[in-house]
Every structure is written in C-alpha cells, then in structure tokens.
C-alpha cells in the first residue's frame, strides 16, 4: 500500500501531532522535557487512562460503560470510609474496593445482558446511582481523619502510609506507582485483546454477536466479563485516586467519566485502527495530558482545558469517521 497523505493522516496523524506538540512545548519551555515533568504528565493521566482502558474493553465487546467515573469516585469514598471511619488496614480497604468494583460490574451485566437494557442507559443509571450512594454514609461530606460522624462521634482511623504510597510513592524515586499500575493493567489487557483467542471473541461479539454465537462463542459470558473487567479496572482507578488525594473527596469524580470516554474515542484514531483498542486509549489519554501540561507551562489559562479537549476529540473523530475508508 502506498502512503498517500490521506493514509498518512489516518495512520499516523495523531502520533505526528503528538510529536509536534512535544517539540513545540520543548522549544518554548525547556523544563517540559525533563524526565520528572514527563512522569508527572503520565501520573496526571494514569487514572483517566485506566478508566479509559476499562471503557475500551466494553466497547470492544460492542457495549459501553458510562459508570466508570461514578464507580471510581464511589470507590474512592469507600476506601476513605474503610480507612478513616472503620479504621481498617490497607489490605482490607483494597479488598473492599475491588469487591465493590466486581459487584458493580456484575450489576451492570445483569441490567444489560440479563434484562436487556441498552448499555448506555443502564450504565448512565448506574453512574447516577453510585454518585448518589457515595454521599449517603457521611451525609454528603468529604472524609478526612477526624471527621465528625452522623451520630456525633469522631472517626478514629487515618489513611495508612501503605495506602498513601499507592498514589504518591515513586519507584526508584522516578516512576510513580499509578503509572506502573497503568502500564501493567494496559499491557495485560492489550496482550489478551490483541493476541489471544479470548480477545478475538471479545472483538467478534462487538462486530457481529450473532455470528460469534453461531460460531460457538459463549457470548453472554464474555459480555458479563467485559463489564466486570471494566468495573474492576475502574475500581483500581478509584483506589489510586483515594491514595493520591489522601482523603475521600465528594467532588473527586467530576469529569473523570467524560475524560475516560474521550481517551477511548481518541484511541480509535491511533495507527488507523478505526476500532476500540487498548494502546490507542492510553495514547489518547497521554495526548490530552501532554497538551494540557504544555499549555499550563505556557501559562495558558486553565479555563481553556475543556476547549482543548473538545477540539482534540472532534479532530480524532473526524479522522476515524470522515477520512478513513467507508467500511461495509
């Protein structure tokens, strides 16, 4: 295949743009290219990228999971509640959070696979449910050590050092733990989705569920698995979020869902894939992170952030749907 400009734009447009952005920012502000800054970009996008990877898994299976943002916020509050109010250990907090994630994933699966509610509607409902549920135990207040509880007593627990390290520690003083977690989760899911027969079944269900079922794939099981994977990954994101901010913040989940979905959609345009793919989602999240970090360094006002994200998303969608050859 010859590399026409159009083909080049479809396959490498986003990567070329990313390289160009890095070059511009590096020239304008030399501090941008420092290893520390690059890792803080990655740290800033790690949680959004994780949620995006989860959404990508459901998109590969032909679904959608809007509830990841609400779930991450909910899990973040649950972690804080477990540590501060219940005075639990690091391990029990993590287990509680992962357990809640799996439960929510199964709940989504029941609504979508069992009851047949359209995925967008079911997970939108779940998003609201979780966003509201996280406010109930504390009467709508954020959770920090020394919180006065609803019954008038004072919370005895605190965020353990071990738990906080999940969000703040840097391995070898350079690699933030959330970035490491993202790398491990994304690499594992990429391996499964791109190279194994299990990944093929996920993609096959997303492309033509009837054909997959008639070829012997247990499609319902895989669809349930997709929502459970998505929710589990989102709850890992919630754990990292709690560890990062060191308290249970009722407003921490704002915007997470939209950013994660945007990363997954931008990922469609990476390397001309034209389909949901794990690596593309990570690149999409990093792309937005680089852009925001660079603009901040250049003293662009913070209120431009959403404008920039919107422009990137629309550009990527234009490549995916407008430039790419029409497919039957």
């Amino acid at each position, binding site marked *: 295949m010859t590399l026409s400009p159009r083909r080049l734009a479809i396959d490498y447009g986003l990567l070329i743009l990313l390289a160009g952005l890095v070059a511009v920012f590096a020239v304008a502000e030399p501090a941008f290219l420092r290893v520390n800054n690059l890792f803080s970009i990655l740290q800033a996008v790690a949680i959004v990228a994780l949620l995006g990877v989860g959404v990508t898994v459901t998109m590969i299976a032909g679904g959608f999971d809007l509830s990841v943002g609400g779930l991450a916020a909910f899990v973040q509050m649950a972690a804080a509640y477990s540590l501060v109010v219940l005075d639990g250990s690091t391990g029990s907090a993590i287990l509680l959070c992962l357990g809640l994630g799996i439960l929510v994933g199964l709940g989504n699966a029941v609504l979508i696979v069992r009851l047949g509610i359209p995925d967008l509607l079911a997970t939108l409902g779940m998003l609201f449910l979780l966003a509201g549920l996280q406010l109930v135990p504390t009467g709508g207040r954020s959770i920090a050590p020394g919180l006065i509880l609803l019954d008038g007593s004072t919370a005895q627990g605190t965020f353990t050092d071990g738990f906080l390290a999940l969000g703040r520690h840097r391995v070898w003083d350079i690699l933030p733990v959330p970035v490491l977690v993202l790398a491990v989760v994304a690499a594992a899911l990429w391996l499964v989705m791109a190279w194994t027969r299990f990944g093929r079944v996920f993609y096959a269900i997303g492309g033509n569920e009837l*054909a997959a079922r008639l*070829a*012997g794939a247990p499609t319902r099981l895989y669809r349930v698995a997709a929502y459970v994977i998505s929710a589990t990954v989102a709850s890992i994101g919630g754990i990292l979020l709690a560890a990062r901010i060191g308290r249970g913040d009722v407003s921490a989940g704002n915007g997470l869902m939209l950013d994660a979905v945007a990363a997954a959609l931008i990922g469609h345009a990476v390397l001309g894939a034209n389909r949901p793919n794990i690596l593309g989602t990570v690149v999409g999240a990093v792309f937005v992170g680089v852009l925001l970090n660079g603009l901040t360094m250049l003293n662009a006002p913070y209120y431009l952030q959403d404008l920039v994200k919107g422009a990137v998303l629309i550009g990527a969608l234009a490549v995916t749907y407008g430039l790419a050859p029409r497919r039957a």
Partner: protein
Amino acid sequence: MALAVRGLTKSFGSTRALADVSFDLAAGEALALMGANGAGKSTLVKILCGVHGADTGSITVGGTAVTFASPGQARAHGIVAVHQSVADIGVPTLSVAANLLLDSVCTGHAPVWVGGRGSRRAAAAIAAGIGLDLDLSRTLGTLSLAERQLVAIARAVAHDPAVLILDEPTASLSAPEAERLFTILDRLKSRDVALLYISHRTGDLRRIADRIVVLRDGRVAGRFGRPLDLGAALHAMLGRAVGQATPHRPRPETAPVLRLSRTRLAPGATPFDLIVHAGEVLAVTGPVGAGKSTLAGALFGLWPLAAGDMEFAGRPWRPRSPRDAIRNGVFLAGEDRWRTTFFPATVPFAHIAGTISFPFLDRWSRTGLVARAAERRAAAARIAEFGIRTRGPGDLPSALSGGNQQKVVLARWHAEPARLLLLDEPFQGIDVGARDDIVRAIRSAARERATIVFVNDLEEALAVGDRVVSMAEHAVVEEAADFAEPGTAAAGDPHPLRPAEAPPCHRPPRP
C-alpha cells in the same frame, strides 16, 4: 400494449446477466416470468424498475420508448414492483395507515399536518383500492407476513401502475393466504393492470398466469401460452426433465447419524420422524416459514424441540448451545452469510483466515495465544481446496464475489471434520456457476459425515440432495409434490424425489 421489451442485454463485468430478452405484456394480462436462481430474473426486474440501466435494448411503456435513470422515473411511467423480502417493507413501528401513506409523506406530496381525519381517509382509500380488509390503526410489525405483503401491494397499487411486478409474492404464504392475494390480483387484472408475475410454483401459475416466459442463463428459453404446459415450462427452465419419482434409493450401508422420533418443532405441529445416514446428503425444502430454520436451530442447540427426541451418533442429542454442538461435531453454516458468519471490517480478524479459524480457536490454540502463521496456512489450504478466487488469506470477504464469499463460509465448516453438517440456504445470492462448484464441494466431502441442506428452492434441493424431503407448517412431509405436475409424482408418495439424472447441475455457457 402496456409494456414491450426488445433485445434487452446487460453484463456485469465479464458475466452476461441478460442476452437479447424480448417480450410483450398487454393490459389486463398476467405474464409469468420463470427462471432458476441466476437465470436473470432479478436483473430484468431491476432494469424494468430503473435500478439498473440496460446495456442495449429498448423498453416501451404504453407505446412510448422510455429509459429510466431511477426507480422514481420508472414509477412515474407506471411501472411499480413489490419486492420479495416483504419483511423489510415499510416501517414496522408505524400503523398500517401511516405505512400506506409513507410514499406520499416521503416524497413531499403529503399535507404538513398528518395523522388527522384527512390522512385516515386517504389511507382508507388506498386500502379500498385493493379491497384490503384490515384494521388500519394496527401496527405494521404486529401483522402476519401475508398481511404485510398485502399492505405492500396496496402501497404499490396506490401509484396507479400500468405494470405491476410481483417478485415471488407467495413464497411465504399459506394456501388460503395466497388465494386471498390471487383474488386481489384478479381484480387488478379486470382493471387493466398488467401483471408481471415472478414465480415457478406450478399452483400459482395455473391459478394466475395467462402466458409464461422462461429465462435460462439470461436468455428467453421458452414462451408458453394458453393452455399452459407447465411441465414443458419447467423443462425449459431447468434444461432437463424434473419431477420423476425414482425408485427408493438404496439406503447407504451406514448407521444412521441422526434420528428424530415423534418430533414437534412447534406446539401443536404434526409430529414427524426423520433419519439421516452417514454419507448421505439430505435436502430439506419448503417455503419460508415452514420451519426449516427452526429444525436447523434445534439440531444446532439454538433452541429446544417443542417435543420429541433426537438421537445423534447413537446417543440422545440435546445440545445446550451452538458451542456444545460444535464440540460434538455438529456444524451449522447459517443463512445470510453477512448476518450469521462474517464480521464487519472493524473487527481486526475479519479477513478470510480469521473467519475460517474463529470457531476452532479453542482447538487450534490451547494456550490461548493465536498462532497466526498456522491460521494462515490452514486458510491457504482451504482456499486452494475450495477454489476461492482471492489474493490470499488476508483478504476481507467483502472484497470477494458472492459465490466466493459463500465458499469461504463452506471452507470454514470444512476446516475441522464434521459428523453432521447443516447448511442453511448455501446458494443464497450466488450465480449458477458458483452454485455448481458449491454443490460439488458439498457432495465430494459428504462421505464421512451426514449432511443436511436447507433450501427454499426445490430445484436447488434436487441439485444437491441424494434425497429431498419437504416441510410445511413445521413438519417434514416426506414428499416434494408441489413442484411437479400431478400424476408424475403422486401426492402422498412415501418415496422421496430424486433428480432424474446425476450430476444434476447444468453449467451456463461461458460468454
């Protein structure tokens, strides 16, 4: 003369679909157009409706020579068609009345405010035009296929056509429903509408046709007037005699692979028995809705039988899912390959190799990692075996011709040995040459397994099967008498029909 067609010729690439086709159609006359799959019937209809342009030849409507650039222009000249797939006609969520008015609404001739008394009156007028006796406020989707067919005809008649083209209108109708349709067609004939009626059901033709034109391989192979000699027309259509019941073919010396006893496909349907032997190709035929797909699905584990027992390879057979069936060597190649087999290009392995390997990945990659090189080698071997014309295993099925697409479907289900192979409409949307290839492929690999082919078209059933049984109303009725003239095959003859000669396929002359 309502319609005069002279010397119509049409080629698609190197394939000549129509060669020098001429016929006349008078007002108030019903002309039946017969032809096997790939004979050029649908090409002819598409040219008459303005979907395709002809390469050469002329069409004259009411004495005026016309050329159509679009279906709208054909309609403006009074040629209106009711297409075969009635299930797709109209908007199923709208009422009958709204569907009857759909054409005027969509072309902008309707008043701005719709749904009021004026609309109801307009819809009632359209319904009255064919004597349609239906509650117009019912939702189209809740109607039976037959009723939807009548709605489609009412819509067509509302255009006040000079020529009405009906493409196999009785394919999914029961006998009383078909009679209701014929009554309406009689009324149209008496109003001087010319009917071009496409079918090769002898019952239909005897009831409605005044004359018959037979197409074979794109040419007019015969013209028949009153009194209609349907046997001769069928002979002209197939290029050979059909319908002779031959003595019972000796059963293969093999054990039965599949045995159905006292089987009911639907509650209240007649129970039936069926035995299929190893090495045998059984063709199951019957109209749409007769239960062919229900039977195939029950054998493949898509749904349970309503009643009765299945025995497969000597053991009770109750597959719980397609997965269960495939593991036990029961494969189903579904009808409508794009719906049931192929993946859209957004799937990374939509190519031929991935399509073929997909059902067998759990056997071929026990670790879970897909061995892509082995997958490609397997696909290349199948491509050679089935003569699939393609650049290689990495090609997308959408880049292939219909016949080659169907060979990919067949190749997939020959990638591992089957004990029972079910093929649902394997000749859909392919030309006669490709059909012969596929018949040969099915028959040459049939020795080691039992094969059941489900086809609507009796001629295809005769071409592929060692034995043909027909289905009606969710039961196997072990005869195929509908096709043949009464007398040549006695109704109720327990012996199934056999094609008169073997191999029963004819190749079209290569242009």
